[in-house]
Every structure is written in structure tokens, then in C-alpha cells.
């Protein structure tokens, strides 16, 4: 009798199936619930919006002195090349544009970048920003870098996301008017799908970049990092390049860490500890690329997308810490002020933590 009882309780596929007879329906219910109940990673997406918007804004401003030459009428020499790239109206609107229209377009792009950063009317601003930014970029894709390609694709996904739920002018105005935002379920579904696309694209970029690297002999022998930083194009600070490539151990370590971090990235997202390690290593890699290789826009835009993988709780902790620092400094200067309760935004709690959060 005891033996029979043990047989019934012993772990087996059959027993598991009996116990979890309604696994399929539970799984579907959980999936439906994940997509429809909460708009996940709303804080991470707000940080991505602000950071990537700032980088695009910086990119537009830095290039103002040469904009008409490289993207405006001066880029006419690229017509044989860009005629086959497949950009359709309105993304090819600048191809025949004169200086006046180009300047108008560029100024509007800058204004849209500012509106995107501060989170003003993002439902309308995001698609417009995508069109204005992409049309400029399409004029001269050869001078683009991976960051330009990446954010162009991300902006398509972000059109469907709720980017102004937190830390935005939109949310501030809603709170000021004491209005609660009505959230339609179908729109929540699109938001969460957009988030999935952002994370999937991010994982794909890192995984493929890593997998392509392991095929190269210089990545295999641990010296790949030495070459670009010693070229004229990517060795922006030759003294720094010499410093970090002087020791062969350092070169090999950076080369291997780059490859391992990129390939492991998607798999390290499954657990919160490994996810934090992955994000810290990848952030370090981006800072290195920005400074040593002189690619701040590429690195910054890639790193800004990583923000969606940081939990809402962590972002609120960071916000709280910054607020405390701010208040402490403010109080020291002006003890009579700054004792009021924090803004609603500061006490706002995250939505139910998402799987990405």
C-alpha cells in the first residue's frame, strides 16, 4: 500500500500533467493579463525617451554648422546612391528641397526633439519626430552610425508605447488638472507589444554583434580591440589608445569581455542579479566606446534603450536619492524653503513590476 502511494506521488511527467491539467488556460490567462492590465516599464521608457531624445537633440545641434552641406541641398551628390535606398514619401521629402525648406524642416526637428525629451503630447510628437528625424538621416545614410540606425527603428516601435506616463509634461499637466488618464485596454496591449519589440531588438543587436565577432580571427586571438582604437577614424585620443593597448592582458580582457557580454546579454536578462551584471558591463562598454572611440551618440543611444531593462523600483530609488540630494543642498542654502511635501511625481509608486522591470 505504501509502495503504491509512493508511486502515485513520485515525480513524473504524468503526475505533473495531472496536477497541471489547467496549465494551458492559466498560461493564456496570465499572458492576456500581462498584456492588458498594466503598461509595463513606464519609468524605463520615460528614461529612454529623455536620454535618446537628448542624444538626438545633441546630434542635431552639433551638426548645425554643416547641416545644409551634409543633409541639405549640399548632399545632392548622393542622389545616385540614395535613389535606390527605398525611402518613400514623406521620408524622402528633402531630396529635392531647397535651402529654405530644409532649414524649416531642421528647426522643426529640433523643436520636436525638445518636445520628445520633455514628454509633451508624445502620442503626436513621436510619429512626427520619427518622420522629421528619418527624413534628415535618409539624406546621407553613409555618414550615419549604428546609433542612427538603431534609434530610427526604435522610434517606429515607440510610436505605439505610452512614453509620457511618468516624468513628462503630459503627466505633470494631468496631475495639475487632477485628471486621471483613462487607459484603453487595446492601447495597453500595443504599449506592451512595443516594449517587447524594443527588448527583442536590443537583444538581437547585442547577440548578433557578438556572434559575428566570434567568427573573426582577431576577436578569437584577443587582439581585435587594439585595431580600431589605433586607426585615425576611431582613435580620437591617440594617447588614450596607446595607454589601453600597451598591455596585452588589458587588450585581451577587453576584447573577450566585449564578446562574452554581447552574446550573454539576452540570456542574462532572465534573473535580476545576472540582469544587473549584464547592464553594468554593457554600460561600461558603451562608456568605453563613447570616450575611447569617439562615438558618444552611438553609445548613448544604445545605452538609453537599456534603460527599459532597469526596474521601475530602481528608477524610483534613483529619483528618490536625487531628490534627497537636491533637497539637502537646497535646504542648506535656504532653510526656510524645501520642507514641503515632495511633488506627487516623487511619491508616485511604480505600477506592478513587470517581467522586464
Amino acid at each position, binding site marked *: 500500500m505504501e509502495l503504491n502511494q509512493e508511486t502515485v506521488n513520485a515525480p513524473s511527467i504524468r503526475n505533473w500533467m495531472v496536477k497541471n491539467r489547467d496549465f494551458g488556460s492559466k498560461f493564456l490567462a496570465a499572458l492576456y493579463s500581462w498584456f492588458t492590465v*498594466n503598461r509595463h516599464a513606464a519609468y524605463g521608457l520615460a528614461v529612454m525617451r529623455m536620454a535618446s531624445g537628448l542624444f538626438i537633440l545633441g546630434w542635431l545641434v552639433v*551638426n548645425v554648422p554643416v547641416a545644409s552641406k551634409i543633409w541639405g541641398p549640399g548632399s545632392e551628390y548622393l542622389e545616385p546612391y540614395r535613389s535606390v535606398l527605398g525611402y518613400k514619401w514623406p521620408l524622402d521629402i528633402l531630396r529635392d528641397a531647397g*535651402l529654405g525648406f530644409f532649414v524649416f524642416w531642421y528647426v522643426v526637428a529640433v523643436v520636436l526633439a525638445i518636445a520628445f525629451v520633455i514628454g509633451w503630447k508624445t502620442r503626436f510628437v513621436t510619429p512626427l519626430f520619427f518622420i522629421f528625424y528619418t527624413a534628415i538621416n535618409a539624406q546621407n545614410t553613409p555618414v550615419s552610425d549604428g546609433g542612427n540606425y538603431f534609434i530610427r527603428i526604435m522610434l517606429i516601435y515607440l510610436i505605439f508605447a505610452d512614453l509620457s506616463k511618468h516624468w513628462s509634461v503630459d503627466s505633470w499637466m494631468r496631475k495639475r488638472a487632477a485628471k486621471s488618464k483613462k487607459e484603453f485596454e487595446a492601447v495597453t496591449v500595443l504599449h506592451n507589444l512595443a516594449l517587447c519589440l524594443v527588448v527583442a531588438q536590443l537583444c*538581437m543587436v547585442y547577440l548578433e*554583434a557578438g556572434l559575428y565577432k566570434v567568427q573573426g580571427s582577431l576577436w578569437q586571438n584577443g587582439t*581585435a580591440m587594439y585595431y580600431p582604437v589605433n*586607426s585615425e*577614424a*576611431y582613435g580620437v585620443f591617440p594617447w588614450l589608445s596607446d595607454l589601453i593597448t600597451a598591455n596585452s592582458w588589458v587588450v585581451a580582457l577587453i576584447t573577450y569581455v566585449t564578446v562574452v557580454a554581447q552574446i550573454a546579454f539576452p540570456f542574462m536578462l532572465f534573473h535580476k542579479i545576472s540582469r544587473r551584471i549584464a547592464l553594468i558591463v554593457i554600460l561600461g562598454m558603451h562608456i568605453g566606446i563613447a*570616450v575611447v572611440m569617439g562615438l558618444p551618440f552611438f553609445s548613448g543611444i544604445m545605452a538609453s534603450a537599456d534603460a527599459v531593462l532597469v526596474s521601475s523600483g530602481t528608477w524610483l530609488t534613483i529619483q528618490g536619492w536625487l531628490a534627497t540630494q537636491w533637497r539637502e543642498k537646497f535646504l542648506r542654502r535656504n532653510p526656510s524653503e524645501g520642507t514641503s511635501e515632495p511633488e506627487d511625481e516623487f511619491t508616485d509608486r511604480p505600477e506592478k513590476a513587470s517581467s522586464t522591470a
Partner: protein
Amino acid sequence: MRQHKTRPKLFTVLVLLIAGAAALGHIGATLAFTGPSTPIKSSLQPGLNRYFLGPLDQGWSLFAPGPYSQDEYFTMRACLSSPEICAQGSKKGAKFTEWRDVTAEEMKSRAGNMFANRESKQSKSIHGRLWSAASDLSTSAREQIAKPFIQGTPVFGVDLSSSQARKEYSATELSNLRAYKRMEDTAVGFASLYAIEQWGGASMVEIKLRREPIVPFAQRNNDEAKTKSRETYIGWRDTKEFSKAAVSAWS
């Protein structure tokens, strides 16, 4: 995770199914497009290439499989006399400029400056694309591009969109020649505008692409180590004409 207590709404389910399928299809297509050459990728062509034209275009083999390991220079010179005199050479009084390393000039603004503007990438990016288009050409076609094609004579001696070109070349050959010609026209256009900027204009330009490999890692501490540079030479071509707005942006 909170459980949804109400019954699923039909509209929401439909949105989730349709948008979810579209998102999955898109990510699958992106994986196929950006990944290595596989039977799946081949079977999805040419639809895959069409889908990723324009705003969805992407590729993530960043610094891979081989890292960027050479310095690339776009060099050029121009003939400032009329096309007829230029065609007869310096003995007949044609005025030629010295060779100019456009990339080295553009790169000056990048040295020590993380935030250099994108003008510093113009000639280098043309170099990369033109070099690779020229590498796809046959040996005889590569010999041809080094010859002068001036005063309206088409490069390769034939209009590549004509029926005569279709008879002369196979489909693959013609595709490579056209891809090269597009990049050459772009490079000649760039050199024409550079000539306007530097000398007020020219009637012909000559281009030389130079690649200097980085000193190998093992020899990095040897100050006398040198590498052998390689060149792709594009013979004299007529300069391109541009709109007033384009010329004024470069003047």
C-alpha cells in the same frame, strides 16, 4: 502578476492576436535579414530585401567579423582648365591641381574631439562603399575604371541601362557594374563639389582610394614597423553639375 478578473474582451483579444502576430513576424524577419546566410533567408528573398528597404534597413555586424583595422583615405586632384584643354594634357597648357587627401583634411576636426560633426565622415564613408563596389568587379572591369572616361564617354564605354549593355554582360555582372557606377557617380559628384569649394570649380577630377593597414598588434611597440598600403584608382572623369542651392552650400 495580477489576474484579470473580467472576461477577455473580443476587441482586445483581436488586437493582441493581430498585433502580436505582426510583431512576431517582424522580429523573425529581422533575425533572418540581419543574420547569416541561411536556407531560410534565401527562401524568403527577394521579399526580405524589399521589406527592409528604407526605414527598416539595418545590419548589426558591428566591427565584425574583422574589426576596423585600416586607415582609409579619399584622395583626388582636378583639372581646372576647359574640358577640351584638359583632354589634351599639361603639354597643351591644362592646369592640374596637386593631389589632395580629403579624408585627412576632414579628420583634422575629429582629432581629440569626441563631438566632431559628421562632415568629418563624408569622404571616408564614400571611400568604404566605392572600394567595396570596385572589389566586386571583374579584373577586366577593374582595369577599365582606371582609364579616363571624359567628354561624355560613358564609363565601361556603354550606357549600363541600355539593351546593348544587357547583351554584353551577364545579369550578375551588369548588377555589379551598375552598383559600382552608382557609387562612382556619387564619388565624382563629391569630388566635383569639393573642387568647387577649394578651387571655385573644375572640369575633370581624378580619384585615388588608399588603404593603410594598422601596424599588427605584435609589432605595436616597434616604431619602425610599417604596413603596405593598397590603392584603387579611378581615372579622369567629367565633373558633375549641381543645382545652385547645392553649389552655394559648398561655396
